[in-house]
């Protein structure tokens, strides 16, 4: 638990994990009353936004671009914010990405090409016969 009351129950896991696909799941213990508010801040910007407001006990954040983000939570709209939890989103390196994409392209084209070629050559043989 953070020093102000409600906190993310998976804080340790969040702090020690780098998201490679821009997806983060934030979890906390459900509270009665008005529920909670969860806020997102992207490092290096002044902007923040309320991600979730309600009575659920988790929210899945998707579509984050590479960068450092922090999230904090508070009980009801007047409660104190928890300490922010930092999250890093880091995709695979461009070099690794392009190597794997080239490999994927070769395997898929070769697979489809071999099947189509095999079928065409058989139909030609059948035509000749």
């Amino acid at each position: 638990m953070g020093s102000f009351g409600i906190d993310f129950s998976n804080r340790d896991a969040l702090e020690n994990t780098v998201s490679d696909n821009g997806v983060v799941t934030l979890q906390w213990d459900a509270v009665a009353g008005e529920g909670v508010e969860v806020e997102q801040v992207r490092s290096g910007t002044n902007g923040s936004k309320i991600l979730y407001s309600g009575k659920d006990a988790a929210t899945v954040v998707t579509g984050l671009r590479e960068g450092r983000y922090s999230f904090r939570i508070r009980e009801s709209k007047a409660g104190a914010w928890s300490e922010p939890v930092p999250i890093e989103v880091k995709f695979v390196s461009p070099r690794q990405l392009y190597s794997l994409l080239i490999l994927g392209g070769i395997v898929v084209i070769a697979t489809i090409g071999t099947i189509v070629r095999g079928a065409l050559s058989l139909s030609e043989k059948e035509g000749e016969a």
Partner: protein
Amino acid sequence: MSILSASTVSRETGWIVVCLLGVIWVGLGVLWGKKAKNSEGFMLAGRNVGLSLGSATAMATWVTSNTTMLAPVFALTLGVWGMVAYSTASFGLLLFAVLAGRIRTLMPEGVTAGDFFRMRYGQAGWGIFLVITMLYSLSWLVSMAIAGGDLLYALAGIPYLEGMSLILLVCVLYTLFGGLYAVIGTDFIQSIIILVGIVLIGSLAFQQVSVSEVYEHVRVHQPALLDIAMPAALLAVFNNMLFGFGEVFHNNVWWSRAFAMKKSVARKAFALSGFLWFPIPIAAGCIALTAGPLGINIADENQTGPTVAAAIMENAGLGSVAGVVILIVLFCSMASSIDSLLAATSDLLIRDVQEKVFGKKLNDKNFRRQASLVIISVGLLAWLLALPHWPIVQVLFLSGPLVGSLIWPVIAGLFWRRVNVKLVLAGVVLGSVIGVTAYYMVAWYVATLMGAGVSMLFTIAARLVNPDSALASRFRIT
């Protein structure tokens, strides 16, 4: 399970819906099972399945709970490329259309995929195939049973053990009575129900929010979902496509359908099912993308589909029937896969293990009794494995590189006369090992690609280095 609380049906209603569906499927199984006069009728529906039933059964089998549950997750987490990635699994059906014609020509009397591997790659190849396909089929079957139990608990509060047991029992019963006739017939009805459900929920979603509003929300709040170069999503396209190729090309679920269809319709039926299946994950994915603009919170990404569908129906004033509709659609999508897996896996065990390993040749008289015993045993094994609620879906995902490494051996076996069998099999084993390693060391979205890539290199080399035509001669490859 609070995420679906707005639309959960009562436990009584849940039991009534599921029992009603169960009675219908079992009743149809008994009715259609009367057509099966001999072993060929029971296992291959008399090799007489036409175009409409053939394409519907292939499509329905491919619409698993993974499609209705996972396609929305792909859209929500990987965006536009994620939807495309999931849809590329249809290419497996389209390409299998080409292979199906060849399979019927080469093996007019064939019964299982095991026949092909044994004839083409000998006992060693057949053994490797059996290990991979049983691991894959059982993990698919058990993960479906677990998903069924989870679904009934989430939607109707039916305890996991009761729900999981119920869905397995229903599928075992109608497969037991009706064989492939029942599986194909129920698949046809189930595929229509699934399509109607997805179209209904999709229509309701886009009555509540416009496409431009969805686009604007995603652009502002989930920008990576629209990025053309999102690495995980781009790599998922190739990985998913190859996973789909591997699943369809090797598994007896598809081979048994190829053998069951009339030779003249096999190609058309698989091609049609591929075209019909392609838009389903995109439709299911689009529904998931409306979550943000409609203010629907996703608390568990694995429940994205049911959560969004329930909220959309609630918004449309259909809250009281939302749970029932979702329950019916998802129950059908699970049943259509469980029955196919039960039938195909049982065929494989009877034909390949009982007859070939133990040398017990079955005549039509004792076949039905043996088939019943095997179907019940497979159902019981699946039940026992589903009982502890292990995360077996991880085993299914992990089987991607294993089935991916069988893609090229199938292609080579069907189209090439001469290959070096040892080299092909070495490629399957090494591809599986490297793919599984990549799963853990890199990410899930490269595992199947690595497995298929390594196997491809070895199979191509096997055509050039000391190729052997001895096995091909048994197979009448010209």
